[in-house]
């Protein structure tokens, strides 16, 4: 009897557990921007910046995008990762790019994107954007929506050039270009 009760309890837990999992993962799709903000949070956590940045207590997260994008990223503003506070900066104009440690670009004309990447190519700025085209334009991390899920593409060449290190925890679930 006791065994049966335990089994039932286990079953109940499983159902609730599944229900929660289903609630998060399958039933309700999440806004793409919110998910991208959460993934960006992981990158902030699992990326190592050069020593100059490492001494800072703040990581500047610059976001180029409209109000829904800014709003989604506001959810990770102020989060503490590896002893540093994430500070969201709305890049409504593409000036002072050098203050960024992370630069997330939602949408830019390809010609402007090329110039942005050109301007910060030697600085320790982790650049993130949309699609493989973002990597073609010199970006580091590109997110692609496929079958309603997000796929990650990482180009290690600009990452190394900027003296950044992305943890293998992230790289093992990404499509990596320019690896050893």
């Amino acid at each position, binding site marked *: 009897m006791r065994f049966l009760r335990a089994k039932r309890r286990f079953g109940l837990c499983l159902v609730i557990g599944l229900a929660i999992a289903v609630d998060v993962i399958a039933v309700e799709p*999440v806004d*793409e921007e919110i998910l991208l903000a959460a993934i960006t949070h*992981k990158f902030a956590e699992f990326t190592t910046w050069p020593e100059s940045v490492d001494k800072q207590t703040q990581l500047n997260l610059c976001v180029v995008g409209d109000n829904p994008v800014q709003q989604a990223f506001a*959810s990770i503003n102020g989060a503490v990762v590896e002893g540093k506070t994430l500070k969201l900066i709305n890049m409504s104009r593409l000036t002072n790019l050098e203050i960024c440690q992370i630069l997330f670009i939602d949408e830019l004309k390809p*010609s*402007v994107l090329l110039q*942005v990447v050109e301007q910060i190519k030697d600085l320790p700025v982790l650049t993130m954007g949309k699609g493989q085209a973002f990597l073609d334009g010199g970006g580091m991390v590109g997110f692609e929506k496929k079958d309603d899920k*997000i*796929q990650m593409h990482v180009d290690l060449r600009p990452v190394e050039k900027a003296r950044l290190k992305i943890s293998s925890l992230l790289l093992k679930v990404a499509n990596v270009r320019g690896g050893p």
Partner: protein
Amino acid sequence: MPRLNHFSSRFTFLLGLLASTQTFAADSEKVLNLSVEELLNVKVTSVSKKAQALNDAAAAVFVISNEDIKRAGATTIPDALRLAPGLDVAKIDANKWAVSARGFNGRFANKLLVLIDGRNAYTRTFAGVYWEAQDVLMEDIDRIEVIRGPGGTLWGANAVNGVINIITKHTSSTQGGLVAAGGGDQEQGFGGFRYGGKLAEDTTGRVYVKGFKREQNSYSNGQPSGDQWDKVQGGFRVDSRLNAQDELTVQGDLYQANINQNVVIPQLSQPFSSLVNDKAFANGGNLLSKWQRTLSPTSSYTLQAYYDYYNRDDAVIKEARNTLDLDFQHRFALADRHDFIWGLGYQYSLDNVLSSPVFQVDPKSRGTQLFSSFIQDEIAVIRDTLWFTIGSKFEHNDFSGFELQPSARFLWAPHSQHRFWASVSRAVRTPSRGEENFTTLVNVTRPQQTQAGFIPPVAAFVNNSPAFSTEHLLAYELGYRTTAIDSVSLDLTLFYNNYDSVRSVSQVGLTPGFPIVVNSELTNEYSPKTYGAEVAVVWQMLDWWRWDANYSYLRTDLSGAPFNQLAVSPQQRFSLRSSLSPWRNIDFDAWLRYVDPNSTISSTGAVTIPAYTTLDLRVAWRPEVKGLELSVTGQNLLEDRHLEYLQESFTLPTAVNRGVYGKIAWEF
């Protein structure tokens, strides 16, 4: 508790103070605790972003997307423009439209500027647009930006009441083929073909051809109105990235149309007017080249040149016009807070107009020049919160000389979900070739025997006048945009327009005879005022069900001008659209529109067009074959026919018929 939260969020919205970020917060909380692997397994949606995006312009901007046009079943540019709030779009007959913003509509409406990929569709002949001559492959439209209110500072003269920017897709997003064909009772038959490919490593291109045949409408008594027409058009576009900084676009179009119309041509001898079953012919083409150099993230310049030609041969006017246009724009950031944009422009337009029974033209051919320059500075007064934009256009044209069009605008973004803006701007409408060089025989009334006695025929001429000059507008606008309620966005604009020196007609002489000849002259005596409000709401009710509603209110104060000389646009317009996709491969769209009565000026005086309500329905099915879509669209379904507008002169009141068409589109 959640319900209470929900209620309170709406309450805060009403106060206009705080934003509800509930769903966002709840979603973020859920996903932030997941591992990377789990995050990559979460299903995502991006429908709400489209509904939530707020425009950052300090102007009344509305964007019509390619998807909107498709789902509205619009087959013409004017029909697509009905999607925007505040635009007064009225069909005169199968091949003529009256389109304006914030009043003073007409077939020869002269206060709206229309650009197709940067090429001006406005004609100097009457300072308006031949809508039947403007077309693109509807599937290739990226978006249509509709700016209500003056846009003179950036766009130049005649952007008095609005600017319409029709922008086609970059060729990199129209790779592959598209075949679209269909037909019905009003849309008798149409077809389009486009093919896009890669021409070199960084060069893409496309070619297209389209054609249609449209059925005639009816007079109010049900008799056919003889306005059937057909058109064929083709064109190309090539986009090339020359290097990391330079991009070049070259594009062009050619068209020809056979336009049928029944026109009333006045004449000085018996029987004083005749109804002509006219077979008009129109053709034209253009070639445009645009070179863009991006120097840095905050600095770029553009050089654009185009040539445009059109020819029109009908019973009322026979004209041909060649236009050459050059434009240069430079944009750069300065000292962290300033974003400058300045430009120079030159246009030469050469026409050839033949006199007709209606128009006496002198000189027959005229070449006119337009020199223009502008400068604008957008200043970030408080970073990411408050912007002040100031600028002016300076131009010189051969009709009215030097013109100045300054504007000042504020944009305040106190929160990511709220935008407030305000503007004061001056705009001008410069005289047209017609106003300066045409003498028009507007109308000849037939002799009548009445109880009071015999009324002889009267011929009304409107003469050009050297004194006729520019019309002015001083416009004040206020706007508010918000997404404070989850999945709803709201855009509200208030405006007050104070016009001065608006065109009037003054009688200058009366010559007895048979007919009696009344001569009038163009003058600038009217100072009407308009004010109103425009509201646009988008509600993404569910991922698969969206509502778009808009309402426009317009009051026209003629300020003493006689009722029979200025057109008065509908006071209220309302549009409600439901876009429903219950399954991934099925779309069901419904579009209801209501338009208040309006008055138009015909050759015999003011005519009131009654209010109308109309409904369009569309159902589309995408079978398993990739890129294939079958659809059926019903337009103007509520009545057999309804009248929307009456052209200023020469045509008879023509009602728009109900129509149904089917369409197959296949992208491969």
